[in-house]
């Protein structure tokens, strides 16, 4: 558990994912004087402003200058500081892509990026404020660690872990009115280590971000129909927990990936890559944004359209269970 952080479900009920991250970062900043928080005119929206109130001497606002902020963060790290940069995901990952790649990753600078309003979480704002490409972009940068926490509690743990981790980290969170999956912080969480939140042997749903809770709900519904569905909370997209993917593959041979992201480039492709390299037969369904720009609307409605809510995942489970595939020579390793 991060030092000094004792959030409960009661806090999560009235604090958003971003608010909790802001509070966590502020508390971490109490002890770690190297943390410098930075934003681009979004102190309030990203909730990093909480840090500003407590540690104004270690807070920098760049106005609307995202690319300058990323380069600046790289320079701050040279002084041994730990810059934590926060802005909307679409600006962080896409507008600043080359600055993050060259100034931070290539230069091996210890910078943390906490990108809010990722996926379609800022639904009504429209496509300019959605970001369904960031996982794809960020995971192709060498030296980068990429995390999509399931909820506010995981965000708290991911933020603390990112500060401890030596190297660039990209954490994508929602706007964030996403319901919490966890009830408190009493669970183990480690960068690069998937959490099996539902056991199962018929099929495995590998999810990240706020679709994790949806996947759990879909698995619970499937259970009532006699299906044993495993759910992996794959909060770290890179480095991917390939061992957990392989285990799910060999145990179930039916995989569904789920993410609030384009099905190209994100978690689905990362998992597909492991499956393809294994040479094992498998049915794979990638749920997410099907290579299009999302329409505007409430995040719940958009998730429904993209079939990454519990209904959509449940439907996919039923579909995938009906599919046929060829057995390979290691077929006996299936449970």
């Amino acid at each position, binding site marked *: 558990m991060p030092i000094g952080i004792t959030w409960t479900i009661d806090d999560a009920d009235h604090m958003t994912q971003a608010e909790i991250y802001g509070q966590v970062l502020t508390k971490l900043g109490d002890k770690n004087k190297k943390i410098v928080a930075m934003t681009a005119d979004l102190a309030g929206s990203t909730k990093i402003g909480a840090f500003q109130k407590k540690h104004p001497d270690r807070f920098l606002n760049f106005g609307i200058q995202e690319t300058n902020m990323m380069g*600046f963060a790289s320079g701050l790290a040279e002084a041994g500081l730990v810059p934590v940069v926060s802005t909307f995901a679409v600006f962080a990952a896409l507008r600043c892509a080359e600055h993050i790649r060259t100034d931070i990753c290539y230069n091996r600078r210890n910078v943390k990026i906490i990108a809010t309003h990722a996926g379609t979480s800022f639904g009504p704002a429209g496509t300019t404020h959605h970001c369904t490409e960031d996982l794809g972009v960020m995971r192709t940068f060498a030296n980068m660690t990429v995390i999509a926490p399931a909820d506010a509690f995981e965000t708290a743990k991911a933020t603390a872990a990112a500060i401890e981790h030596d190297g660039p980290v990209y954490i994508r969170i929602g706007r964030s009115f996403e319901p919490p999956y966890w009830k408190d912080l009493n669970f183990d969480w480690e960068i690069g280590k998937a959490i099996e939140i539902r056991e199962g042997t018929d099929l495995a749903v590998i999810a990240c971000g706020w679709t994790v809770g949806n996947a759990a709900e879909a698995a619970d519904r499937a259970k009532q129909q006699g299906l044993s569905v495993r759910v992996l909370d794959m909060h770290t997209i890179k480095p991917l927990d390939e061992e957990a993917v392989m285990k799910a593959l060999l145990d179930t041979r039916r995989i569904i990936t789920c993410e609030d992201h384009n099905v190209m480039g994100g978690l689905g492709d990362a998992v597909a890559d492991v499956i393809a390299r294994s040479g094992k037969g498998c049915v794979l369904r990638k749920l997410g944004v099907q290579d299009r720009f999302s329409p505007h609307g409430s995040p719940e409605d958009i998730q429904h359209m993209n079939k990454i809510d519990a209904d959509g995942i449940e439907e996919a489970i039923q579909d995938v269970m009906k599919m046929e595939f060829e057995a390979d020579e290691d077929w006996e390793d299936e449970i």
Partner: protein
Amino acid sequence: MAVTKQEITKLTKKAAQIRKRIVEVTERCGGAHIGGAMSQTDILVALYYKYMKIDPKKPHWAARDRFILSKGHGGVGHAVILGDLGFFPDKDLDKFNKTNSCFAMHLDRTKVKGVDASTGSLAHGLAIGQGMAMGARLTNKKWRTYVVMSDGEMHEGTTWEAAMSGAMFKLTNLTAIVDRNMLCIDGHTEDVMAVEPLKEKWEAFGWRAVEIDGHDFKQLCDAIDQSHKEKEKPFVIIAKTVKGKGIDFMEDLAKWHYAGLDSETSKKAMQSLAKSK
């Protein structure tokens, strides 16, 4: 401290030696950005041989001054100086550009000792340098950050974002220098995308700006001294230079931005440098 005549003589000799070595390395490596390496040489020589607190034996010395060649394509000129100072054996430059050597045309800070930022993509250096300057301030360190930019970088939006933040944060522990050689790859900056009036632009962004002859060590050193004394505003030196400086057939020609040199051209370049003042 004001530059002396003896120092100017010494710096002038050093610059001549560096330019010759750049020609040698360019010939051997198959091609480099020789035009801009020549225009920046006097600026880098003034910084490295008179001003910067560095220790080639301790390249990661925490208290050292930081230097960023934001115009990363000048890497061949930067590497020649670092080799001359002893950050690595000068003969290592025989491997410049070569597969598996530590030297690409644009230097990698994780591979080449003495390099504080891996650059090459333009208009990244001033932002990084300002982060370093702010880092010194936040950690109560005395080191100073120097950033050398090309005039082509004045086209880029991030340069002007950084210009704003430099003034906003009053980063007076940083000296920025523009190598104003007037040429980008496709021609004269004022024909391709005008940057003038450059001094007025920097002033309008809240900087103290001076315009000098970037090949005159007296003017260069006086301007750098002035930047150290400035306590109110960040300081930019617009150093008017000549692309290909010192090699008569290269001077002021955009086509020498990047070039390979055969032995005959290299010989001619050496002869021209020998005659050059």
